[in-house]
């Protein structure tokens, strides 16, 4: 078993709510809200206008730089309007509202079987890039960028991230059970693209079914192995995962490639398979819809652009006492103020919590208990950082490494003073960025 890293916490996992539910395909909703920017990095630029007819798989936004991806229409229909709409990240984002025509017609060139055996590294990278594939664990970092390491940083291990350490979420778990072969095919393509032979599937031990299924599936495949992981949050964070598997530390402020490793979420592997084999861009994903607030929890295959409201309705609706709707998991997800938010490429789950389950944070003084230090997987001192941030001494937060904070929330999860630690760190990071922008 691959074990641990420094720190971490053991929140209630609550996965049983949706773990046993097979992925259900959600029918085409009445309208879709597709954000023009679906990735971390440079926003993409709209190339369609109100009133235009689009086909399924047609590009509606072009990448705005290298670290950026195209966005495709999830169905055929008409663009009813464009404008700013509530998004899962908590802001208004520019999007197109598409009214499906019900025919679900593919754009020419899409949805054709292709023989993947002969694809070269560059061809794979191009396919991934054009299919608009991003990290589907939630980070939405453009995948083709990860596949293009600089020459002097050779990668020798590909890690499939099936840890799924966020409480409640089960979408990766279901994918590993139901799309095992496809995921491994996609992983092989990644491995070929960066020329590595060693592929490790990392799964937390609380998914014995997935571990077994993957073990059977990798048998006879060269270079593949399955590694059951200790169940601890944030096991699935890239730097922690790499350390658990290889014992290598990603340098502070550095990228995983600097430790010779590439981490890909299992959902991303599936997307790569579908892009390469079936010529389908990334227009849908599996979303775990769960929490005590949903009447019929489950895992839903939904198109990008499906509103949270439609998905929740599809899952039986929410209970009257639902107090919080989270896009993503409860540790790192973003709470929603509107059910008009629509699924984007990074929406791994929608978690509905009741009031008594929701943590309330207050700006109480730190009692220096040190619990946050013990759990911080980045070995930061969240107590000191938060005090600097509180006093708006942002330079000092920088000196104390706030940039290395992965916002995993472990510190705030255990803080007995219920200090809003992550909130402080997000603000400090934003302030530091703002200042350097002004200075630059």
């Amino acid at each position, binding site marked *: 078993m691959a074990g641990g890293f420094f720190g971490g916490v053991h929140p209630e996992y609550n996965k049983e709510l949706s773990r046993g539910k097979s992925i259900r395909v959600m029918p085409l909703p*009445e309208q879709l809200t597709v954000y023009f920017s679906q990735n971390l990095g440079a926003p993409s630029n709209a190339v369609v206008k109100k009133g235009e007819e689009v086909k399924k798989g047609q590009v509606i936004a072009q990448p705005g730089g290298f670290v950026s991806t195209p966005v495709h229409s999830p169905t055929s229909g008409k663009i009813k309007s464009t404008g700013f709409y509530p998004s899962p990240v908590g802001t208004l984002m520019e999007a197109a509202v598409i009214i499906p025509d019900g025919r679900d017609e593919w754009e020419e060139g899409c949805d054709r079987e292709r023989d993947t055996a002969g694809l070269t590294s560059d061809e794979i990278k191009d396919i991934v890039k054009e299919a608009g594939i991003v990290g589907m664990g939630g980070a939405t970092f453009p995948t083709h960028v990860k596949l293009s390491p600089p020459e002097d940083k050779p990668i020798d291990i590909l890690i499939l991230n099936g840890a799924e350490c966020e409480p409640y979420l089960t979408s990766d778990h279901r994918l590993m059970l139901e799309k095992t072969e496809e995921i491994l095919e996609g992983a092989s393509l990644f491995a070929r693209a960066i020329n590595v032979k060693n592929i490790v599937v990392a799964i937390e031990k609380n998914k014995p079914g997935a571990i077994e299924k993957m073990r059977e599936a990798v048998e006879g495949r060269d270079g593949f192995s399955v590694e059951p992981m200790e169940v601890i949050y944030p096991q699935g964070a890239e730097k922690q995962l790499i350390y658990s598997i290889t014992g290598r530390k990603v340098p502070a402020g550095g990228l995983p490639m600097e430790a010779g490793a590439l981490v890909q979420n299992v959902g991303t592997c599936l997307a790569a398979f579908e892009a390469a084999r079936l010529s389908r861009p990334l227009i849908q994903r599996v979303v775990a819809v769960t929490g005590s607030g949903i009447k019929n929890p489950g895992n839903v295959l939904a198109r990008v652009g499906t509103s949270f*409201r439609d998905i929740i309705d599809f899952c039986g609706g929410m209970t009257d006492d639902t107090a919080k709707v989270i896009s993503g998991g409860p540790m790192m997800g973003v709470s929603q103020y509107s059910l*008009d938010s629509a699924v984007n490429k990074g929406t791994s789950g929608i978690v509905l919590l009741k009031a008594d389950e929701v943590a309330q944070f207050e700006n109480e*003084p730190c009692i*220096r208990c*040190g619990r946050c230090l013990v759990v911080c997987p980045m070995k930061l001192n969240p107590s000191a950082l938060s005090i600097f941030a509180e006093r708006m001494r942002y330079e000092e937060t920088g000196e104390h490494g706030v940039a290395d904070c992965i916002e995993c929330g472990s510190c705030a999860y255990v803080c007995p*003073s219920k200090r809003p630690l992550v909130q402080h760190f997000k603000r400090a990071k934003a302030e530091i960025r703002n200042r350097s922008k002004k200075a630059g």
Partner: protein
Amino acid sequence: MEDEMKDKDRKSGSGKNEMKREEAGKNKTSRKPPEKKKEEPFRERFIVSSSPHIHDGRTTSSIMRLVIFALLPAALFSIYIFGVTSLRVIVISICSALVFELLALRIMKRPVNISDDSAFLTGLLLALNLPPGSPWWLVVTGTFFAIVVAKQIFGGLGYNPFNPALIGRVVLLVSFPVHMTRWIAPSAWGADAVTTATPLGRMAESLDTLGHIDMDLIRELFSREEIINLLIGNTAGCIGEVSIILLAAGGIFLIAKKVISWHIPVSFIGSVWLLTGIFYKIDPAHYINPTFHVLSGGLFLGAIFMATDYVTSPMTSSGKIIFGIGCGLITVLIRLFGVYPEGVSFAILLMNAATPLIDRYTKPKVFGARKAA
């Protein structure tokens, strides 16, 4: 991206964020296509705040309550062996601590919130550090210094550099040495209380008068009975410091509950044992057996319940070990070469002062940080 960040941080948001939120609201009504469902009530109802959205449930007051719980056996036992006089001190101390806390919070216009139980705990700890027969005014003076001077004037819970209960005790020790060393023998249920000395006090006294250790006294104190008395607490001393076994049990409970870590108690008690052991090995005629040192003079109470106070001790494990060793060293120096027979309180307070320094030099190194060239 910045916008996203700010928006996510709405809960403690600045005015700017609020504005953005307003805008968001407007946008939704003006630019959004007609809704199939009314969504207004949802927006009102959902809680929007920064991640994480769950908490492990342990709060400041639940921690305080666990510590209080861990102290209860020792406190109850002291009532059993010293009688109502002990109960009286405990009750006065807790009540006056709560009253001072309340008044101070009112006067300083801080949110009045004594539900965190920290004042209760301070009152209890101070009582356990006083002789059982302490007069009421002594106790009240002690809690005044503990709560008002040592804690609230410095900014309240979390900001006090010194352990409040210890400040209370040391102020009394320095100001009223006679009252603070008037011990009563155990099993004295009120009326027939006899004044006596603590074992450590008797030892120091005999050293002073004879110039070497009185072997008869040693034999008496080291009889199996006496050691057992020390362990279970059938001896003279402060209210809470006498029953080693019950204090240790409380400590193990707190470590098991992850309220405290082992680092401070073990390094503190261990270093006292080791250092006094070295002196004893060198010159057994002048120095007392290390086991006796460890079992007496409030070392367990101090090491488990006072030195581990979060606010005034270092945060990292290595810092805690340095802190514990420092406490042990100072305790031994005071006991062997100072004017007071016991030095636990002074040692902890002195190390409290060193805590910021220790914290600075034991800063954790960021994961993946390159070694400084």
